[in-house]
């Protein structure tokens, strides 16, 4: 067996490989997103636990107070948003830490694809497996809080705009806390939760404004602007942090 040779590419193949430029930001993004989604689907139990956590946190509040219609409707959006923040935070340490531990992160950083694109792909997969389900479950959970249909629509719109920001900012925090002893989970929370505050304020504020008849456009626009800003900046910051963590 030791005498068997693997199929050898022609010498010219080296030149071709070296000349193949990293034109594939999109290909890199697709690789990272597809791989992380596949891994998430292989460990579905973990995904289920995160969503169950979100559902239970939201369900605990009505049980712990007088089930008064007005009070619940006032608190509902805030509670749902805080639970969404916590659900996003809960899954963040895994975003880079497992890849760091098994050496995949080295290969990711050495890939010819731009690291920023690969990071963006990982964030996309994180959002699809945490942020999106959280937003889609919100109408069901809002029933407990007597929110009217208009408020629920604004809540979901806010979550759809806001949860990607949580994943994007969270990626920077997760990359910065890589390599810390004990996973850095609590440090990550301390680092990232203050950055989540504006998202929480505008997200929950949008529903409040809609309930008060003021219209949610201003708050949702600010969330949209925040998302645009985060999309442009955070992949670069997270990629830089990954490179530092590997050095």
């Amino acid at each position, binding site marked *: *067996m*030791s*005498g*068997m*040779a*693997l*199929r*050898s*590419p*022609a*010498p010219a*193949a*080296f030149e*071709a*490989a*070296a000349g*193949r*430029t*990293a034109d*594939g930001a999109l290909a890199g993004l697709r*690789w990272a997103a597809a*791989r992380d989604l*596949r*891994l998430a689907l*292989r*460990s579905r139990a973990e995904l289920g636990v995160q969503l169950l956590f979100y559902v239970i946190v939201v369900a605990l509040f009505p049980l712990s107070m007088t089930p008064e219609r007005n009070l619940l409707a006032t608190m509902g959006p805030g509670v749902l948003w805080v639970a969404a923040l916590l659900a996003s935070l809960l899954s963040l340490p895994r975003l880079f830490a497992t890849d760091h*531990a*098994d*050496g*995949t992160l*080295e*290969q*990711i*950083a*050495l*890939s*010819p*694809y731009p*690291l920023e694109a690969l990071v963006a792909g990982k964030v996309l997969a994180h959002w699809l497996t945490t942020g999106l389900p959280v937003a889609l479950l919100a109408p069901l959970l809002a029933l407990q809080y007597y929110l009217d249909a208009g408020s629920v629509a604004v809540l979901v719109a806010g979550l759809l705009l806001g949860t990607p920001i949580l994943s994007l900012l969270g990626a920077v925090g997760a990359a910065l806390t890589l390599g810390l002893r004990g996973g850095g989970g609590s440090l990550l929370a301390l680092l990232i939760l203050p950055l989540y505050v504006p998202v929480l304020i505008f997200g929950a504020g949008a529903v409040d404004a809609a309930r008060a008849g003021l219209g949610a456009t201003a708050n949702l626009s600010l969330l949209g602007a925040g998302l645009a800003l985060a999309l442009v900046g955070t992949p670069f910051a997270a990629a830089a942090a990954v*490179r530092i963590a*590997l*050095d």
Partner: protein
Amino acid sequence: MLEVHDLAGRRGHADLFAGVDFRVPAGGAVVVTGPNGTGKTTLLRMLAGLSAPAAGEIRLKGHKVAPFAPELRAAVAYAGHLPALKDELTAEENLSSLVRLAGGTAGPDAMRSALDRVALGRRRSLPARVLSAGQRRRIGLARLALLERPVWILDEPVTALDAAGIGLLATLVHDHLDRGGAAVLATHQALGLEPSRVQSLVLGG
């Protein structure tokens, strides 16, 4: 192919090595040896572009390269201590994922024949978590063979490999050198490479 000038390495506050000079020609290999803790891994990580040298420079085909430089990422295949495998994925999925990540274009047939040749053909559908340490290493060998990178940087490549696996590795490295590739290996174990093509570098000597 790869040149190193006056390279110095530091880990934390400890100076590991300084003034390291060598040249790896196309078709040649450098075997790095030295006691534990003398900076073999640090040196190899610098060559792969994962960390910055404390001093000195690394040149690829005559051009100075910085860590994570695109030219370097397109030219180097790095295999470190960690196998970069996912327990949840099968041997074949792991291989294909790693080859795609490196921009490789090998199709499913090439993947399978590469797995056949590292004697994992019949285990290609098993999840990596049930493979032995040596079998996991062999996935890495199949990856190297499929990547078509001119420079191989291999850190302790014989770890966990059996005699047949080591023979396979030596064959792979020879094939690679025959094609005009270059290789830098850190290893304590003789691989049986042709002495005429191999330079030896001893760290901490």
